[in-house]
């Protein structure tokens, strides 16, 4: 079970969190202007790298705040995380 580094609470058990998938995918400013393909790309397609991956996590059973963290998908090792308003990971 991972220890997930919540930037506000510190490292906590994985079961306290919900996984939010790839970070840095902004909601389009005008979805209606997008083609079906561009919308589907936003909706369904995510990166799946081996190695460093910026992800969203939600400390649902803790402080109930979202944050981004970089995790190595091969070793599961987290890089130190920072609150979102202190810059992108």
């Amino acid at each position, binding site marked *: *079970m*991972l*220890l997930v580094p919540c930037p506000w609470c510190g490292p906590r*058990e*994985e079961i306290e969190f*919900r996984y*939010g998938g790839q970070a840095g995918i*902004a*909601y389009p400013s*005008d*979805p*209606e202007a*997008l083609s*079906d393909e561009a*919308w*589907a790309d936003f*909706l369904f397609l995510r990166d799946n790298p081996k190695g460093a991956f910026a992800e*969203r996590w*939600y400390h*649902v059973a803790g402080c*109930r*705040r*979202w944050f981004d963290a970089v995790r190595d998908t091969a*070793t*599961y*090792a987290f890089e130190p995380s920072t609150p979102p308003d202190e810059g992108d990971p």
Partner: protein
Amino acid sequence: MTARRTPSGGSGIDRAEPISFTFDGEEVAAFVGDTIASAILANGIEAPFRSPILGRPRGVFSAGAEEPNAFVEISEPWFEPIVAATMVDVVDGMVVGSRPGVGRLRGYAPRGRPVEHRNAHVELLVVGSGHDGFYPARDAAARGERVMLVEQHRTTERGAGGDFRAEGVTYLTRATALGLYDDGYVTVLEHADELDRLWHVRARRVILATGAFERSIAFADNDRPGVMLSHAASRYLEHGVLVGSRTVVFTAHAGAYGAASNLVAHGGEVAAIADVSGIELDPGLARDAEVLRGWVVSGTEGDRWLEAVDLEGPDGDRRTIECDSLLVSGGWDPNLALWRAIGGGLRFDDEVHAFVPTEGPPWLSVVGSAAGEVRNGAPYWFVPSEDTSRHFVDFQRDQTIADIADTVDAGLRSVEHVKRATYIGTAIDQGRTSGVITAEVVNALLGESPGWQGPSNARPPAMPVPFATLAGPFRGALFDPIRTTPMHPWHVERGAVFENVGQWKRPWFFPRDGEPMERAVERECLAVRTAVGAMDASTLGKIEVVGADAPAFLDRMYTNRMSNLAVGSIRYGLMLGLDGMVLDDGVAMRLADDRYLVTTTTGGAATVLDRFEEWLQTEWPDLHVYCTSVTEQWAVVAINGPRAREVVSAAGTDVDLSREAFPFMTWRDGHVAGVHARLARVSFSGELAYELHVPAWHGLEVWEAVMAAGAPFGIEPYGTEAMHVLRAEKGYVIVGQDTDGSVTPHDLGMDWIVNRSKGDFVGRRSLRRSDVVRPDRKQLIGLFPADGRTLLPEGAQLVPEDTGKIPMPLAGHVTSSYRSLALGRTFALAMLAGGHAMHGRTVYAPLPEGTVACTVTSPMPYDPDGERRDG
């Protein structure tokens, strides 16, 4: 002769404390400190075990966790279906029986050991308290670190249990690390005196000092009782047991000479040492026995116990030596099961002729013999022979060298494939004595060098563990939190039958005088349609959405507009996923300009709140909105039926209940039965209805007041089943029952609730996707079976034509199906491809008992104009 108790000695037992237990119906004497295995040996029980497939007699082969033969079922003083006899200390009065490699469950709920779970956080966890584990643990404790030391035996060989009492150390004996997981999470099972304790440990660093397992050597009839790993003989001397009167040793390395010396020192005789190691020997080592350099054991003799060993010399000479004990040692293999299961690497080391650890997680290290500090001679895995069909490799699966050769001949090369073809390593001993041999036999058969491929991977748990232990106290009422409403005691008193909705207990129906469910639901529906009924709706999810931007926020979350809702009014709302599929529904009440109360489905409350938070925190942090769950704060009494107004009035209220002053889809603040209440005119039954929202601590009191006030009007409490029937008669969907995450508002015929002029909302763009606008998507319809008495099963498939031939094209499925008193017949809701355009047509439900023809209808058969509801 067989094994026997020595006249004296044995630091592991207390000869002043004789005890006894029952083994396969016979009373067996033992001392405190004996394991079941040591006691069986001490009593000279011949052939105490059987192999699981071939039924061959088997004896105790080891003194530890690697045991492949000696498995027992414990029935007293606790029940355990199967466990290695080498790992259980005898308890006075214990009742055990041999089990041939497979446990069996009893037809009743047996009494397991009491179990508790505990959590621990330490800087250092050391697995194995031998020399290599003891000192790092002691040193860390001296530095002030919190340390846990886990030892699978009762004490260690060096007696650390007696003198290891350093501050800050939790020293667990008779404890096994079951598995290592990410970031230093370790589960440890401790067999304490009174109970089993499952530890959940989070350690900053973990050291594995798990030692090494002695290798076996495969030769003909190597499974006969009396054949044993060499170090086990020394172990049993600590229990005051001499494993044989006259012993032969078969070894591939120098280490087994020590075991021979130990036996001699305790009154045993070592007839010969067959040594294939080729190592130059210290002459002192050979003083206890005749050493036969280059000789191998070619077979064993005896019936239920070893009587002689056949030996073959390097020049083909043959000898037979009478003996009652044969000790085998092929060398030592580091015990790396835990290491490998968490992803640690292995390589074959040509110096020590064994697999040793390479890279692993940064928090994990391996020390001592587990790290490869072992001394082996040149590898010697099996004695060559034309017939290897009794050269046993995996005793618990009865698999031999010949069986491995067959699978390799069949073309399998990977040990993972050989494992799955032969089942070697898949029994409950996890192949501790067979894994490396199997890999090396495969390597040799393929003409590859030793270590070309390693043993198959291991997975937790490292030792068999009963599910009951993993469950611990978290079963029955403690399995999952149970949520009940303030009115719950009333429902129980009234004999309600409950159903689980998420974690909530909700009354399903209220049977009277033992009436069956069907009758009870009919009666409850009748009351609501013709008089009045009351339902406990407290489990509805309730979220207060507060802030200057709350109106704009809700406009983005719901498909319809919430910002222009007047204070005092209520609006039904539908929420979509980004993919345009229906996620949840409920109503929004405007409490003030900057304050809404939104309700969710009972099961969807947490999901909806999380979703609100996600959008507010990650996409729209500029919005001033706060969301608070108030589900538990408000109890809700739903009063439905033509007499609902009279009941609320009779309960006593200061709110003007007239249709003009308090119309449908509005709410009013006031009092009911002397309690401050929020009254809401919403209806999920299609009848005139009031919901009373009262502070939770007044819920029971108001419920009782309503039931008393309603008695003259024939009020009935009704449960979720009647509620489902009533809403289905109106064509109201239940998200999660009629929808399944692949249904759009259009599919439900609910275009009226999608406001495309108000700007963007979550899911809006997806409603234009080409797949979402296909006309042949499954759409919600009503169904009338041709015979109004036929009740379609929910989940029944629908086909467009009754061809009678399988396969047939599927067109949809039934999502809800009920008997309706109001309609005087059965009916159903269903999702049907292109269903909106099929009203009046016939479709078929092919069922095992016959095909049912059904007429497609609008999904709103009852009071379609809503006159009753608005009354």
